């Protein structure tokens, strides 16, 4: 599946793609078409390239070269139309011939610059022959016209026309111009057929330059967000996801704009389901989204936002947030969620190793059935050893699977009424292993700190006690 499809599903991918320094829609299209990679060998070699690019970005000696490289990227034009024409053996016009010549000259600049930088990936092939064909006078200029040197007949026709005054002898001049046109056309035909066999190399270089730009943009993104190279999990640990100090770049950026910092979170997941509990506003959803983002980034050959990360390769990543209402099809959020889970389970039954991240599944229906659906889902994921993290507020489910809990709310620091916007200052987002069956009962406590009416809270507390009895 392509990056474009994933960025619709996994929050944050689209955001990061937008932060990449790409010269335009031409390159962005290449990025969007990149495929989710499940081969360890390919990923390792891709990550080598990003690392190599990052080393260059970080090396002050190459500052100048990198700036030149960025400039060169902006000079590449979208010549797909011209390349198509060449492939289909059409006759190129002067503008298209210029574009080929210009592109050949650019490739020469790229080859020289990448040589200086010592960057040995996406090697471009020399287009000197192409350039020479379009530079018959050998002056090395990128400008182009149908040179006299191409044809004696053309040269003569032009000389003839020069001797005629278009105002005085209009007809004769027009005849002479038509003659020139014919000769020019003959030259264009000849050049096009000579260029045609070169279209494979031209197209290949065109693709490679776009990919080069993406490698460097991935490296620049890694530099900007302090991302690290993910270790691809192998051997006995090949089904273990381990990330130290994960950051969610989207939220980190939002917090940064109000002078706050994202608290990095560490996690380790193994085969089978794991439940994630925690008070309201404790960042459970963020953990799920960040995990999905890191997994997807790694398999699209990006560095990941964490201090260190070991990533098992999966066939697919599913992030089920449950707020998708498929209104066009008249589905409620519950129905949309159930159908999505059903699709995911079908994939898993088909024997695919996937990562499932579900946010409070079945929360939009009654608690009795909701909890039952959750238990059945956990049991299914356990049976199929599917690596998964499922957040929930349901407690006492009687499930034996692993549980993690967000450390939670530290109310000792709160003085007076709590500003909802300052909530995250009193929250410890780190994850701890939970042995208890019950879930944190902090909802009313938090509501009180938020300044919700006291009588209302007391009334609610009474109901909690009644239920417990």
């Amino acid at each position, binding site marked *: 599946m392509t990056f474009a499809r994933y960025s619709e599903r996994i929050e944050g991918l689209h955001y990061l793609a937008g932060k990449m320094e790409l010269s335009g829609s031409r390159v962005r299209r290449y990025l969007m078409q990149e495929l989710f990679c499940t081969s360890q060998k390919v990923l390792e070699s891709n990550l080598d390239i990003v690392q190599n690019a990052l080393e260059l970005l970080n090396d002050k000696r190459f500052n100048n070269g990198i700036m030149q490289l960025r400039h060169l990227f902006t000079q590449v034009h979208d010549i797909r139309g011209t390349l198509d024409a060449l492939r289909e053996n059409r006759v190129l016009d002067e*503008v298209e011939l210029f*574009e080929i010549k210009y592109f050949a000259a650019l490739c020469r600049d790229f080859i020289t610059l990448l040589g200086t930088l010592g960057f040995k990936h996406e090697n471009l092939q020399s287009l000197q022959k192409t350039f020479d064909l379009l530079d018959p006078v050998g002056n090395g200029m990128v*400008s*182009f*016209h149908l040179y006299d040197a191409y044809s004696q007949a053309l040269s003569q026709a032009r000389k003839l026309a*020069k001797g005629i005054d278009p105002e005085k002898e209009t007809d004769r001049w027009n005849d002479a111009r038509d003659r020139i046109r014919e000769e020019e056309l003959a030259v264009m035909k000849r050049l096009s057929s000579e260029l045609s066999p070169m279209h494979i190399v031209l197209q290949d270089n065109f693709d490679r330059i776009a990919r080069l730009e993406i490698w460097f943009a991935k490296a620049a993104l890694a530099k900007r967000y302090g991302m690290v190279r993910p270790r691809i999990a192998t051997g006995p640990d090949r089904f273990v996801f381990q990330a130290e100090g994960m950051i969610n770049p989207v939220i980190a950026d939002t917090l940064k704009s109000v002078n706050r910092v994202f608290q990095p979170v560490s996690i380790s997941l193994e085969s089978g389901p794991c439940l994630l509990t925690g008070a309201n506003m404790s960042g459970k959803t963020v953990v799920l989204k960040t995990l999905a983002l890191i997994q997807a980034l790694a398999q699209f050959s990006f560095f990941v936002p964490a201090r260190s990360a070991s990533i098992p390769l999966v066939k697919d990543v599913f992030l089920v947030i449950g707020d998708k209402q498929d209104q066009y099809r008249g589905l409620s959020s519950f129905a949309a969620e159930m159908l999505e889970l059903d699709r995911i389970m079908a994939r898993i039954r088909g024997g695919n190793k996937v990562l499932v991240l579900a946010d409070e599944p079945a929360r939009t229906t009654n608690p009795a059935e909701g909890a039952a659906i959750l238990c059945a889902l956990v049991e299914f994921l356990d049976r199929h050893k599917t690596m998964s993290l499922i957040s929930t507020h349901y407690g006492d489910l009687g499930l034996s699977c692993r549980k993690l809990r967000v450390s939670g709310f530290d109310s000792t620091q709160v003085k007076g009424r709590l500003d909802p916007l300052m909530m995250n200052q009193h929250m410890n987002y780190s994850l701890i292993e939970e042995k208890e069956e019950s879930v944190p009962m902090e909802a009313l406590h938090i509501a009180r700190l938020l300044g919700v009416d006291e009588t209302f809270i007391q009334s609610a507390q009474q109901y909690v006690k009644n239920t417990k009895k």
Partner: protein
Amino acid sequence: MPFVDQIVRCGSLSVVGLGKNTGKTECLRYVIKRLSEMQKVVAVTSIGVDGERTDQVTHTAKPDIFLDRGMYFTTAASYYLEKRFDAEICHVGEHTTVLGKMVTARALERGKMILAGPSDTVSLREWIMQIPKRFHVDVCLVDGAISRLSPASPVVTASMVLATGAAYSPHMKTLVEKTRYVYDTICLPRAPEDLVKKLEGITNGVRAVTPQGDVTEPIAGQALLSEQVRQVLEKCGDRLYVPGVVSNILLKALGERKNASETELYIRDFTRIFAEPRVFYTFLRKGGRIFQLYKTNLLAVCVNPVSPDGVRLDSGQLVDKIQQAIEVPVYDIKRMEK
């Protein structure tokens, strides 16, 4: 003629005709000729209107521009490929328009060509900035147009020459008045720098400028219909910014307000005013003020006393009359060439 030296100092010039056959092409031709006599390298383009071979303002065929050997010019690929003289392509733009990509070429011999260059203000400004960087060009010339149909404003050039003539009005008095009116709009003062910075990025929605200098959210999409104008008047306070067209009814309504003398109207540039001279002057006479975000340096007015339907005004008298009304030099190009 002195103004050609000024063009070189400014680096860019647009030639704008007040109407069809007012001598814009002759004027441009004259400037080109003088510049090449001075050994200056010139680049020329015309404000293009996408997909149209005819001039949107006058519905006449776009005239060919004469190009001298060594001149750079920018036009759409489909026009370029029809050329009947030798030229070399030096640059091809990235974006494709209905007429193809923008081609910048250098004439290798004398020739003529239909020019259809950048069709919006941003790309036109880009052209003026990039051309001298890419090539050794001394002066960028723009064959301009004043039209509400053209999103590109010639005001992006550092200087301007206005062409007017008998074809614009056959009566000398009216012609002088009409020319003076356009001159007065061109001379409207530039807005203070801090406001220019705040407003230049805003290209849609009529907005109020508060006494503290803050720009509000749009109070109306535009102010062309009486309902919209009423809405604008209700909410705009004393200072308002109209990024689009300043219509006759808006300016009229502003002039009729009690607080007309306190009113400050901010516009992008003079080409956005589409009001009757009477309405314009009433507004100013009542004490209202108009400021432009972009102001160009008007170097000269060129007159063409002859119109194609046979009107022939007295050249000397016409030059004198217009000269009395405005404060930049007035020339009859044809008479000077003789």
